[in-house]
């Protein structure tokens, strides 16, 4: 069970709720408090949304609106800022692979893993938005609309961006392995700090970039921090199946969930990873209340304030914690491994998750009642420390 943290919450009018803290969204205190609340609820991890432009209600374009939260902080830095103030919670910031350097991202996430002693992950995102590309001035993309998605040229572009994302993940992973675990030897007799036989060039050559390596940062505590991605279509499902440790998906119902999971499992098998655990979590936007009517009324009130009905790529749920627990169990039976809940309002819905939903799931015997000392990988059922691809057999 995880929570996706975004500003004052996922509903555009969330910041106007009485308990929202819209003037504090750019402070370390705010994010530390949210992480502490998530940890109080014994959640597996939180993701932190990010983007390389102002938030927008329009698809792939700025909207010029002034009635919603605008402006954000770099999510990797937010995760690092809260890491020393939490002990168990997994921390999964977002990295936009289209405009950034895999070498920088790899060492940043490795360092987050050190700072959090084995709780780091990363969510990779692509960006085809022309206005984001203009912030970097190195490539340009056509303005797309949702209707263009089946146009062959657009599919080719999106396909290329996801192929680049797969290369990016491959580079991050090779760099994490570029130091074997015991490369640092501190051998006073020979004066050598490292054994250079155990530090490896990665020699990655791809369409968009080539990276020599090795990393400047030794292999992180988890060996391979958790890589995750959100998908709504075949391109990202391929990326998840081939490259990710965790997938987030947005099915409308259990049947949809089963179909998506099957597609990801097929991609996973095609990539030769059929035996590896690869949890698939469903995203849900949640409005919670003491009774169903109250939750719905709150949703309506928020919609009224923002001037239109809130829509989302993910299924929207409004109801009680108990009803949500029913829904989660029903969806889980469709082959999902868990959920990434998007609180409509922070702190209201975040607290409803940690203080109402979690106890409800505990009563049903399907959620932990205490943290153990697991790393994020272990908590997600992944191999604790995967073998290092560069270590000769028997040396790992």
């Amino acid at each position, binding site marked *: 069970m995880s929570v996706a943290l975004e500003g004052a919450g996922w509903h555009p009018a969330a910041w106007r709720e009485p308990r929202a803290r819209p003037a504090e969204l750019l402070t*370390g205190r705010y994010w530390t408090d949210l992480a502490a609340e998530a940890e109080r609820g014994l959640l597996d991890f939180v993701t932190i949304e990010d983007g390389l432009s102002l938030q927008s209600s329009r698809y792939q374009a700025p909207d010029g609106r*002034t009635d919603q939260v605008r402006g954000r902080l770099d999510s990797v830095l937010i995760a690092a800022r809260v890491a020393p103030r939490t002990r168990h919670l997994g921390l999964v910031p977002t990295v936009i692979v289209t405009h950034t350097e895999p070498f920088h991202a790899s060492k940043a996430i490795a360092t987050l893993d050190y*700072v959090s002693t084995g709780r780091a992950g990363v969510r990779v995102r692509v960006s085809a938005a022309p206005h984001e590309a203009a912030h970097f001035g190195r490539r340009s993309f056509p303005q797309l609309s949702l209707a263009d998605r089946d146009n062959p040229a657009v599919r080719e572009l999106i396909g290329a961006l996801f192929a680049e994302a797969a290369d990016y993940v491959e580079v991050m992973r090779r760099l994490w392995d570029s130091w074997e675990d015991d490369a640092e030897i501190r051998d006073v007799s020979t004066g050598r700090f490292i054994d250079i036989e155990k530090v490896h060039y990665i020699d990655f050559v791809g369409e968009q970039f080539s990276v020599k390596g090795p990393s400047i940062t030794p292999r992180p505590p988890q060996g391979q921090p958790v890589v995750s991605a959100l998908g709504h279509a075949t391109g990202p499902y391929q990326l998840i199946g081939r490259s990710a440790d965790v997938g987030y998906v947005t099915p409308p119902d259990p049947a949809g969930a089963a179909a998506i999971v099957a597609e990801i499992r097929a991609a996973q098998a095609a990539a030769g990873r059929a035996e590896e655990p690869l949890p698939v979590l469903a995203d849900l936007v949640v409005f919670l209340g003491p009774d169903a009517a109250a939750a719905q009324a709150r949703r309506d009130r928020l919609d009224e304030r923002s001037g239109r009905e809130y829509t989302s790529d993910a299924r929207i749920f409004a109801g009680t914690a108990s009803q949500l627990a029913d829904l989660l169990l029903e969806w889980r039976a469709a082959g999902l491994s868990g959920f990434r809940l998007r609180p409509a309002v922070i702190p209201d819905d975040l607290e409803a998750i940690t203080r109402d939903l979690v106890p409800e799931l505990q009563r049903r015997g399907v959620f932990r009642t205490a943290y153990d000392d697991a790393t994020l990988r272990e908590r997600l059922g992944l191999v604790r420390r995967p073998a290092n691809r560069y270590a000769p057999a028997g040396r790992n």
Partner: protein
Amino acid sequence: MPKQIHLAAHFPGVNNTTVWSDPRSGSHIEFSSFAHLAQTAERAKFDFLFLAEGLRLREQGGKIYDLDVVGRPDTFTVLAALAAVTDRLGLAGTINSTFNEPYEVARQFASLDHLSDGRAAWNVVTSWDAFTGENFRRGGFLPQEDRYERAKTFMRTTWELFDSWRGDEIVADQESGVFLADPDAGRFAHHDRHFDISGQFNVPRSPQGRPVIFQAGDSEEGREFAAASADAIFSRHGTLEDGQKFYADVKGRLARYGRIPDQLKILPAATFVLGDTDEDAAAIAREVRFQQVSGQTAIMFAEQLWNRDLSGYDPDGPLPEADPLPGENTISRGRASVRMYRDPLAVAAQWRALAAERNLSLREVVIEVTGRQTFIGSPATVAADINRLVQADASDGFILVPHITPGGLDEFADTVVPLLQERGVFRTEYEGTTLRSHLGLDPLPTPAANEKAVAS
């Protein structure tokens, strides 16, 4: 009031100053080491902690250089985490302008400044070779004459991004539903031959407006760049005469840019060795020098000057008879210091003269020429020396580089700092919350305030 001293702590680096063979030497990667040094520096009321950066492991003779500490974590990530375990200490890091884009670096520094409530600082460096560029999609090579130009443009572009928010846009009025006062907040456009970018910056104005700017280059261009744009210089000139010359030179350039001497702090890097008495300290210092320059390290240093494979030489024997290979230094890569040997033949001649005069081995020559510690003595002596240099305008303070990680600053904090405080030349409490405040720099006016001033 006497001139106040500024002090900072440099996390021990990946060079031979750092003695990793000492039993007290801890991890260079684990966060606990960074937290220890930062908390020691904050306990001692230092201005800031500094992290260096290098984006490719160094090589010598085609192999990864393994005699010094190798490896370090990501600068931004460590600094953001340190913001959680300190309250006042400035958080400074080197970030390369060659292998980054202005939009990303600006949002990282603005984020760090927000998350630390105004404690971020940026040491702007530019890289020099395609060697490091092999790790990046941008590649790396720039002709010599373009490097400062691009670095300057890069930094100025980030300033445009920092200033693209005036500082008064976020209203967040829950009642009226107005979050942003201006739909064009963050609007920028920069078009030149290095950067062709436009749009809206997505991090609102941070507490300091922008990070404190450090500059570390020593060249003519570097000094001019600092005089025009930097808040502090991280210099190599730590002795009285040399320091005074540098100090006068750089501060003398400020007027041309409409700035006053106090607006640029000169902070040389300094090493130190403490002992109960001056004699004890001298003995320890000599021992540390031998730890810092092992036989193998001495050969490596000689190779950097000679630009040849000298692995067959005995470090306890004489210097090589052959002359250094002229031309571009190819033996050592990823290391800025080799550029110091602008005339290797002349330097080799000096080394030989020194060896002949004092009957020194290769290793002993390297120990002599690669510099003793800046401050050696009892706490009273070191406090007096530091104060003397600052009061004589050889510097505005020092960036102290301990040779042991992470406890190498503990003794200094406990013994030297109280003596400086007794003399009334170093703070006993932080006065402000931002790094600009610690450095005695006025807050930057916000663009919003500037507009008001122009209008009135």
